[in-house]
């Protein structure tokens, strides 16, 4: 969608691809022609809108009551009646009794179906709470343990070249590891994204026996122990070719580990691209390559971004492949082909091994920096690539509208002397925006 609407049809494209329209129709969120219109209610008075999503007072009481009862029962059991101990045990008992009470309370008023619905929702929400609770806990733990290092600005601007184990936290930093991580992951991504997505396209669009073989191999590789990826690169690249540990070797190890993850995750999302989109593209005569480039990839874009993020997340935070390949250094090295180049996870591993409390604090600080770095990268990737097909930013929408408007003017100019244009020029579907009201008209001109 976004591709065609920004480009005047016919400019460099002999056959403008209309397949994108279908994606548009598929997506209920897109403002477009397929929008449901509400018939005029006429003189019938409409009452206040009923709120479907809001929980009733009864439901809220059930939830809150069950929560309180669960906590109270667990506390009673732990505090007075049985000799159970431990905070984790308390949480488990409290949660189980909460569920029990919740079922009971809901069952008093509702039917089996609704009880199941309520309980499953409660379970899903608790899974979420548990997971995010654990995440927040781990992150908070990292930040608390690393706070002494993080409060010093020099931690982000200096290298460890002039800081040893006995030096205070006011000296030395990890900028060399940050740079190392960025360089290594950039090299790995530069290889993994094209290779991984192309392979996933191959698996889905080309098919055949060889593709099945490739898929089997790629699937098997997702479980390749990351340390084996490191060993492989150590023997294949360091021992045979470079004879020294380097950032490039580490990037290769990360690549070997990331590639199957990206392939597999992209494969899954590409497989979910509705077949009718592809068929429509082929039916309109576009080549396989054009179908992939203009239909399949844009439709799966947010999924592909997730795939790449998954791979990056794994590659950027894993210690074992770089353990054997990158080497440890305390100085800034921006040349990936020569000399050791440390990355953040390895720096964490290296720091926490030290008996010095300052070094351990630096280790946790480094882990926190890694988390923040990853968060930034992901936020950027999500903002740029995470939007679903057809969802445009305000600027893109404006650009698309003006392009379509130009097209319309051009077409109407052309169609003025000749009422029926000889070539079928399907318009690009255009989101309706206030200044522009022509689409229905243009639609009629191209049957």
């Amino acid at each position: 969608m976004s591709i065609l609407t920004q480009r005047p049809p016919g400019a460099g494209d002999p056959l403008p691809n209309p397949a994108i329209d279908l994606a548009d129709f598929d997506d209920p969120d897109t403002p477009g022609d397929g929008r449901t219109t509400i018939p005029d209610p006429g003189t019938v008075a409409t009452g206040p809108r009923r709120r479907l999503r809001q929980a009733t007072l009864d439901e809220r009481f059930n939830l809150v009551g069950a929560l309180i009862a669960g906590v109270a029962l667990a506390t009673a059991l732990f505090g007075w009646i049985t000799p159970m101990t431990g905070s984790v045990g308390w949480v488990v008992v409290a949660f189980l009794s909460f569920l029990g009470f919740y079922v009971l309370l809901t069952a008093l008023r509702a039917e089996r179906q609704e009880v199941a619905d309520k309980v499953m929702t409660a379970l899903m929400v608790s899974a979420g709470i548990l997971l995010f609770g654990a995440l927040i806990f781990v992150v908070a733990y990292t930040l608390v343990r690393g706070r002494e290092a993080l409060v010093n600005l020099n931690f982000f601007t200096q290298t460890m070249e002039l800081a040893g184990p006995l030096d205070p936290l006011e000296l030395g930093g990890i900028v060399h590891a940050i740079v190392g991580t960025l360089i290594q992951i950039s090299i790995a991504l530069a290889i993994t994204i094209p290779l991984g997505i192309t392979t996933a396209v191959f698996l889905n669009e080309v098919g055949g026996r060889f593709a099945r073989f490739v898929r089997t191999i790629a699937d098997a590789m997702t479980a390749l122990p990351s340390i084996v990826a490191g060993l492989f690169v150590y023997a294949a690249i360091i021992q045979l070719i470079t004879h020294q540990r380097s950032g490039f070797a580490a990037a290769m190890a990360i690549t070997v580990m990331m590639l199957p993850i990206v392939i597999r995750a992209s494969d899954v999302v590409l497989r979910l691209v509705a077949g009718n989109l592809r068929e429509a593209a082929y039916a309109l005569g576009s080549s396989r390559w054009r179908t992939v480039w203009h239909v399949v990839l844009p439709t799966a874009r947010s999924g592909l971004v997730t795939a790449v993020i998954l791979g990056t997340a794994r590659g950027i935070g894993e210690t074992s492949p770089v353990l054997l390949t990158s080497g440890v250094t305390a100085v800034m090295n921006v040349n990936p082909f020569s000399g050791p180049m440390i990355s953040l996870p390895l720096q964490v591993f290296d720091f926490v091994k030290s008996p010095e409390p300052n070094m351990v604090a630096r280790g946790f600080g480094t882990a926190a920096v890694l988390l923040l770095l990853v968060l930034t990268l992901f936020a950027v990737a999500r903002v740029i690539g995470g939007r679903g097909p057809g969802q445009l930013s305000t600027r893109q929408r404006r650009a698309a509208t003006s392009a379509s408007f130009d097209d319309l003017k051009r077409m109407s100019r052309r169609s003025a002397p000749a009422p029926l244009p000889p070539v079928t020029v399907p318009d690009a579907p255009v989101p309706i925006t206030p200044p522009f009201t022509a689409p229905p008209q243009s639609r009629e001109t191209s049957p």
Partner: protein
Amino acid sequence: MVTFTAGTTTVGIMLAVGLFLSIRASDALSVSGFAFLTEQQWSPETQTFGIAAILAGTVSIALIAMCVGVPLSLGTALLISDVAGGRLRGLLVTLVDLMAAVPSVVFGLWGLFFLQGNVIPVAQWISTYFGWIPLFRVADDAGTALTDASAFTSSAFIAGIVVGLMVVPTQTSVMREAFSQAPVGEREAALALGSSRWGMIRTVVIPFGRGGIIGGTMLGLGRALGETIAVYMIISPIFTINGELLKTGTNSVSALIALRYGEASEFGLSALMAAGLVLFIITLVVNFTASSIVARSRSGAETD
């Protein structure tokens, strides 16, 4: 054709790893032969080494991780795709992605210094009241039940919980992506027919996303089987098969490689490669089974 070249390159890299593993492993395998699969001891110094105990530990850790991870990630994925809405959903998606990037060494430290101390009472409780199930029993060689806290440290159970938490984000991402692709038409149809939200999820979203569930689980299993640093920091490696999951001592192939790599001789390294090769083959079999199931499921089929 470009895509074909990409596919070939991928296979080339993968086969190179497999081939390299096999070649480096052949030294050790030619010495041990088939005993490699049945021997429990790991002592390349005396030429008696085998993978039986290590593999049992690896599998038990991975299975516990799956028991922890799959329900959690399934629930969270459904929460994100069908319960949460608007800004909250975007926030949760970002959080899951972020969690996938928490370095494993941080999880290891957290598991070692925080989780272990807090989970031991739970493990003791389980073994006290469910000790009659052989898996949950914690007993010494003579069969008397152990209650000392030190009998519960560094167990497969604790390592499994930590690894389970580590693989959840990966699994959640894949599952969520599959669930969010479930056709809106069918969802609305189910709701219009009077189904509750859970009814809709059960009849539309889950069947549609089955491929994603299996795919995500397998991806997580792969990571759980191959997880190195966190397991390395938590377990106390032993070289006998330990069927008592709560009891101290277990093992894992990748942790073994990481532990022994630094001090291994050439021959020891070859033995470690052989262990890596066996793990590789096992995951190949598991994943092959999974992909054939995914291929048969309805996931991604045409619906409207």
